[in-house]
């Protein structure tokens, strides 16, 4: 790397001419190669959020139960009993396209580190995945690799993968989305932060050795793909879940002591971002001696050490008198432990290597003068409202239901879950597919955590504001449907190129909708991640603000799942107008992907959900399922397939066409199965909540109002067919 540092090289590193001019101004001289590398990754979109920060500030982040909001490694909320849930979702989209297995695996590894670096033992992983059309020649290989990668990493570290969501759409053909979420539990008085303190304190490196992998990964994640994406494979990191497992155990063991002053994982931009952020947040300086960094290969330069994204590494500031004890813990776990520097009072980061100073940068301007853009926005045209009376039903309810439960966006995900260890830890109360949200109990307590990931990208594409609102509302609804009290969300904003005004318009609108929903539902954002430039050869993805929601149950024995018991009434909660715009019925049966998405009435959402949760916790509900993709009949079929118990469905109100009533996707609705429906409906009436008995459970068939009958066995067969058949297919 003997190249001259100049504007040309800065451009190759992803810095604009203005940004490079700013670097020259801060440095007062031409930067060294290592310094230029540090500026370029710290000011990359991935690390600096330079296009999104102005918008993210609009999101509500506070509530009485929020302990740490955005700005730390992960969000922290009070869950009672002196405990905190620590959680975050993060994307690994670009690496997963280039190398699906390692991209997805290291995505899981990275988000785990964000959580245990704060002192939490990870108790659950979730994910949110979007893939291209099943017909596209690359999609199957990507799905296979991503699923194997998530399983390969999560299964080995011993954190159960308990939930997630999957969509297919041609807009993701060249750009799949892999969003991984981790939830951990810590004592509220043992939460570890990243701000360094104590001039002279040792800076300690632990974990795997550093190699040349992943150099400039953050920069890659901050640009569009061209036809040369294959050549970027060397920028993808390689995961080692075994070392991660040791790192979890060693860090948590050390965290039982008072040795740690500050700790941060080495994620994107590795040693650079961890050292710069720790020292910067603490308002101190830092000196690193790269000769002390454990290296996997010989001859690495300072630039390579600082930019490497080798996985499973952490940086800590320790109390000096605890260094020996800390070293003994890491040696017990066969992990590297090296003092690689110390804190200073200079306010600068100084990098020494082989007797030379390779970088010497003032930290305050590196952070404070990072670029911040208010990029131009243009609102996209919204879909037109569709009148259901003008949409003809050519197939009838029975055939439509069979088609819908079998389509790629609604079919059984068991092929995926069955490759993820969902039970390790012995606390998984609701496994994947058992309920609208996964539930993991806390060992030795009645308390449990409910978790979900949600987004409906086709709604966001038609109306980003309603779509953003809907994503937050659906997460809240899924937590409510198991009886949990929703607490907070983590958001993973996946969008296209922010330099295009229509993309920034989508981003701004989605934030607006999300903010409104967070506000109305007391459901603040406590952590998140932004992934932009999700485009290949100029084609962007659907706007995808994926939401990870977290709630708490004081007593997990009160939770309900979606499996339908026999001989109960099924009551629909919420208003049905027969909204077909952007519905899966319209796409899969009508062959049209258009219209306005269903609007979310946030007041009704709140009222309906609070009512349903109260009924569940009072023991009046035996099963509950929110009504989302596919509408009422698909929701009912999912409940029936989960238990093997059928139902006889009533006739629908005459003022709405049957297909629109049964398959429309109006929001804010639930199906509840209850032994005493008159009492539940009276309670709903008293609270001003719409409630309508729509079916009675029992038998082994679903009997539909048009006289059609489908056996649950046949439904299950249709539901289960897609993934195994597609994966076993030719090619």
């Amino acid at each position: 790397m003997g190249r001259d540092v100049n504007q040309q090289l800065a451009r190759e590193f992803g810095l604009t001419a203005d940004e490079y001019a700013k670097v020259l101004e801060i440095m007062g001289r031409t930067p060294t190669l290592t310094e230029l590398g540090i500026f370029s990754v710290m000011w990359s979109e991935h690390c600096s959020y330079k296009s999104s920060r102005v918008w993210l500030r609009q999101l509500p982040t506070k509530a009485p139960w929020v302990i740490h909001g955005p700005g730390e490694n992960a969000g922290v909320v009070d869950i009672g009993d002196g405990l905190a849930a620590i959680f975050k979702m993060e994307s690994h989209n670009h690496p997963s396209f280039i190398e699906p297995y390692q991209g997805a695996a290291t995505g899981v590894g990275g988000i785990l580190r964000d959580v245990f670096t704060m002192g939490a033992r990870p108790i659950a992983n979730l994910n949110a995945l979007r893939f291209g059309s099943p017909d596209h020649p690359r999609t199957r290989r990507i799905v296979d690799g991503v699923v194997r990668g998530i399983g390969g990493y999560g299964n080995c570290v011993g954190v159960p993968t308990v939930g997630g969501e999957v969509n297919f759409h041609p807009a993701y053909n060249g750009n799949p989305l892999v969003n991984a979420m981790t939830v951990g539990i810590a004592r509220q008085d043992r939460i570890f932060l990243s701000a360094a303190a104590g001039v002279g304190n040792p800076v300690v490196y632990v974990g795997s050795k550093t190699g040349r992998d992943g150099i400039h990964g953050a920069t890659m994640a901050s640009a569009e793909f061209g036809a040369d994406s294959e050549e970027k494979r060397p920028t993808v990191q390689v995961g080692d879940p075994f070392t991660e497992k040791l790192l979890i155990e060693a860090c948590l063991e050390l965290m039982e002591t008072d040795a740690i002053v500050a700790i941060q994982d080495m994620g994107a931009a590795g040693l650079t971002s961890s050292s710069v952020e720790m020292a910067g947040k603490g308002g101190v300086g830092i000196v690193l001696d790269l000769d002390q960094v454990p290296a996997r290969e010989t001859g690495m330069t300072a630039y390579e050490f600082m930019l490497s994204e080798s996985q499973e590494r952490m940086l800590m500031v320790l109390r000096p008198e605890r260094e020996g004890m800390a070293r003994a813990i890491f040696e017990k776990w066969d992990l590297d432990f090296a003092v690689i520097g110390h804190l200073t009072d200079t306010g600068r980061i100084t990098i020494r290597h082989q007797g030379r100073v390779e970088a010497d940068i003032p930290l305050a301007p590196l952070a404070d003068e990072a670029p911040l853009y208010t990029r131009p926005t243009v609102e996209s045209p919204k879909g037109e409202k569709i009148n259901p009376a003008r949409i003809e039903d050519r197939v009838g309810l029975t055939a439509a239901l069979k088609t819908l439960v079998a389509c790629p966006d609604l079919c059984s995900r068991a092929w995926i879950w069955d490759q993820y260890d969902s039970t390790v830890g012995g606390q998984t109360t609701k496994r994947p597919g058992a309920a609208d949200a996964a539930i993991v109990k806390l060992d030795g307590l009645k308390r449990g955590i409910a978790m979900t990931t949600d987004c409906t990208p086709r709604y966001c594409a038609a109306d980003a504001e309603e779509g953003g609102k809907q994503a937050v509302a659906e997460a809240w609804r899924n937590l409510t449907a198991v009886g949990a009290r929703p607490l907070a969300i983590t958001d993973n904003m996946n969008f296209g190129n922010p330099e295009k005004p229509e993309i920034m318009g989508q981003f701004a609108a989605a934030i607006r909708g999300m903010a409104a929903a967070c506000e109305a539902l007391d459901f603040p954002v406590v952590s998140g991640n932004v992934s932009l430039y999700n485009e290949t050869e100029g084609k962007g993805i659907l706007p995808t603000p994926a939401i990870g929601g977290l709630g708490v149950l004081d007593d997990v024995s009160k939770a309900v799942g979606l499996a339908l018991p026999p001989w109960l009434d099924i009551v629909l909660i919420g208003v049905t107008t027969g909204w077909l715009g952007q519905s899966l019925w319209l796409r899969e049966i009508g062959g049209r992907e258009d219209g306005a998405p269903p609007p979310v009435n946030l007041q009704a959402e709140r009222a309906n959900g609070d009512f349903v949760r109260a009924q569940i916790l009072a023991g009046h509900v035996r099963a509950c399922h929110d009504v989302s993709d596919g509408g009422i009949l698909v929701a009912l079929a999912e409940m029936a397939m989960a238990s093997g118990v059928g139902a006889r469905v009533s006739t629908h109100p005459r003022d709405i066409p049957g297909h629109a009533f049964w398959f429309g996707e109006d929001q804010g609705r639930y199906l509840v199965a209850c032994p005493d429906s008159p009492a539940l409906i009276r309670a709903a009436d008293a609270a001003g909540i719409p409630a309508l008995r729509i079916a009675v459970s029992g038998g082994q068939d679903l009997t539909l109002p048009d006289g059609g009958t489908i056996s649950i066995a046949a439904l299950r067969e249709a539901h289960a067919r897609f993934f195994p058949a597609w994966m076993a297919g030719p090619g």
Partner: protein
Amino acid sequence: MKAGIILFPGINRERDMAIALENSGGVKPRMIWHKETDLGDLDLVVIPGGFSFGDYLRCGAMAAQSPIMAAVRAHAARGAYVLGVCNGFQILTEAGLLPGALLRNASLRFLSMDCHLRVERANTVFTTRYQQGQTFRAVMAHGDGNYFADDATLDRLEGEGRVAFRYATATGEISPEVNLNGSARSIAGIYSDNLRVLGMMPHPEDLVDPLMGGIDGKPLFDAIAAA
């Protein structure tokens, strides 16, 4: 019953196992690091599931060479009890304490789901709380659970009544459709010749609490606790 759980680096179901043992026995098991060499006066040694040493070599091959394994061999030799589940079963075969080997699942994919196990004999220290021929549910979570041994070994295991459990339907039928990992003769677990060392792939320890979906695994731990 004094129980201990051996911890190799990469083991990850030790907490599940400790909960199940304490739940039935009322006493917290001792946790034993793999570099220790003394098991003391334990009655039962348990090797739980996970990915010892990452399973980057053959599953269980590295763990079988750990310092503690000499003590485990001595413990077994004096007729004391050993239970190995999942990676623990793999380690016991690699250590030569049980015959055969665990190969990649026939599907070449990780399998995480419930299965039914048929109890082949109900008169060992592990199975007295089950009935012979009954089935119980257990959790499969493995990539390498395909039991393999040569025909002579399999004949001997069957002849000596050393097959502990077989994969079966809920009603106890043996069929390829429910032998998902492809194990020889649907074998899910086997005993040593003195019936005091049990290795099995599925996890009984993850079904000992109704909140986790059932208590089908609890009789196994109740039986050991009462022994």
